[in-house]
């Protein structure tokens, strides 16, 4: 499964507004367009995961992720905060790019962990952080996925 096939333009936001970690998580969750109660549960689950250790893997990238019953299939979203935010990342640097991954506890296709691994691999490509800063549209983001995560 190619990463490009798991994203659509409506789950991409290039101008996240929140200044805090909690606010950013909520903004990312809102991209999935769940109902209010589901959003609240998902936020708690993601927060609890963050409390175990930040999902900020360095180089300005974070991959908040969890399994949750509130989704019926693997859901992904991408958000960019051009000014960056303190996400308690491993390298202590601000985070600019956020990849949200949520999967149901049981998936028929078992994609969650491979996709998590693929996104981590994509993020570790030395040119990706810079390229992500340069993109100007959701389509450009999708094209970058196509190019760097074939």
């Amino acid at each position: 499964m190619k990463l490009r096939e798991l994203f659509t333009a409506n789950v991409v936001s290039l101008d996240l507004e929140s200044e805090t970690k909690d606010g950013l998580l909520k903004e990312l969750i809102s991209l999935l367009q769940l109902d209010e109660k589901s959003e609240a549960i998902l936020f708690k689950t993601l927060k609890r995961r963050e409390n175990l250790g930040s999902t900020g893997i360095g180089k300005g990238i974070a991959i908040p992720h969890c399994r949750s019953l509130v989704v019926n299939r693997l859901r992904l979203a991408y958000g960019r905060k051009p000014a960056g935010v303190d996400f308690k990342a491993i390298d202590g640097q601000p985070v600019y790019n956020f990849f949200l991954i949520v999967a149901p506890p049981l998936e028929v296709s078992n994609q969650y962990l491979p996709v998590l691994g693929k996104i981590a691999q994509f993020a570790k490509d030395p040119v990706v952080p810079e390229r992500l800063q340069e993109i100007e549209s959701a389509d450009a983001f999708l094209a970058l996925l196509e190019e760097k995560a074939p």
Partner: protein
Amino acid sequence: MHPQLMLLLELQDLRAQHRELEEGAGLDIEAGTFNIDVERAAAQLQEKIAELEEGLSPPMRSRYERVMQSLGRVVVPVINGVCYGCFVSIATARAGEQDPNQALTSCEHCGRFIYILP
């Protein structure tokens, strides 16, 4: 949504997170990519699970424990009318109901609590 159902969903999500740390690819990614101290994280999650379980009403708690012991997962989604615990079609539609998860209900076949996904 029924408050006890909300609590059950949170518990189930935490248990899924805990399972992810136990073995295999999940453990490898959490420890390797995210630098998680797996033992500490698992203990932390277990503590949170115990804390949330305290919030279940006594009859709910005893049923929760009974279902978990016999069936593993206590609450399962219902998608397109199918219980994802036993994969049997069940009747879930109730006329005029805005939130189908307002009531706490179980699958008539397997007995697990159900969460009706839109």
